[in-house]
């Protein structure tokens, strides 16, 4: 990264404030649609932080996958379950929220002291920052080849699983015929018959 240090510090501060504010908005706002759009803001701020960390490819992937796919998917889900419902109030809810806030602040304090107390072995060798995509590609096709292929299998399984889970099938009520008695042990939800048979 060949920006001046002051520029880096200032942009880090702006991105950090944007990210934390948007994340708090995601968690605390009442309207779920605002939360979804603020989640996009969180993702874009994190992408900017990745650019500050000399990772151009991962920043682009973050924008493409998170803002372009995950956030749009969440918006679709919000539109599909678009139901105004007043949640029934639960007794002693503030106790739960207070306890959770306490635990979270404690966890933050613990992590902060750990981060600040550990002597990190920072590597100060300077490399040319323009070759991250070449490095990542070399890793993908040499020592991370098996996880890379497994990731493709995982994506395929997730796609098939999501389609099966979200599909809505109405099975019509019919009288049992002889063919149905024969196929009684098969699954009731099955793909449509091929047109020729």
């Amino acid at each position, binding site marked *: 990264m060949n920006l001046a240090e002051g520029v880096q510090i200032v942009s880090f501060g702006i991105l950090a404030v944007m990210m934390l504010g948007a994340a708090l908005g995601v968690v605390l706002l009442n309207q779920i649609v605002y939360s979804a759009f603020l989640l996009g803001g969180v993702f874009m701020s994190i992408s900017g932080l990745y650019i500050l*960390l000399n990772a151009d490819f991962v920043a682009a992937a973050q924008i493409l996958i998170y803002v372009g796919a995950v956030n749009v998917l969440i918006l679709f889900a919000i539109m599909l379950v678009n139901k105004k419902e007043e949640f029934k109030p639960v007794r002693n809810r503030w106790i739960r929220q207070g306890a959770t806030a306490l635990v979270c602040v404690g966890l933050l304090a613990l992590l902060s002291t750990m981060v*600040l107390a550990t002597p990190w072995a920072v*590597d100060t060798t300077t490399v040319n920052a323009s070759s991250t995509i070449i490095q990542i590609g070399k*890793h993908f096709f040499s020592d991370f080849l098996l996880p890379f292929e497994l990731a493709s299998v995982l994506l395929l399984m997730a796609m098939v699983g999501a389609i099966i889970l*979200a599909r809505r099938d109405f099975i019509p009520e019919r009288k049992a015929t002889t063919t149905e008695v024969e196929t009684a042990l098969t699954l009731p939800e099955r793909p449509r018959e091929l047109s020729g048979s």
Partner: protein
Amino acid sequence: MELQLEYFLLLGAALFCIGIYGLVTSRNAVRVLMSVELLLNAVNLNLMGFSNFLDPVEIKGQVFTVFVITVAAAEAAVGLAIILAIYRNRDTIDMEQFNLLKW
């Protein structure tokens, strides 16, 4: 004064805590999924910070981040499908009423 590793780690820790808070306290099921995404992004931020500051030659942290992004995308798809199915069955997305297996 230049960017330190600690800044990014502290930022990741703060984002993680916000995500935990949202995961536990929110009642809308979609918001729970959003909190999970926040958690995964906090982890990604940590990985990228370590990759840049401790291992700038072999950037294995960035490779890990790409894998985490892949798994997060799959998780979001399956999770939202589960929420749709549960919404059709129970006609609500309130986390307090998903108590079929409770007690």
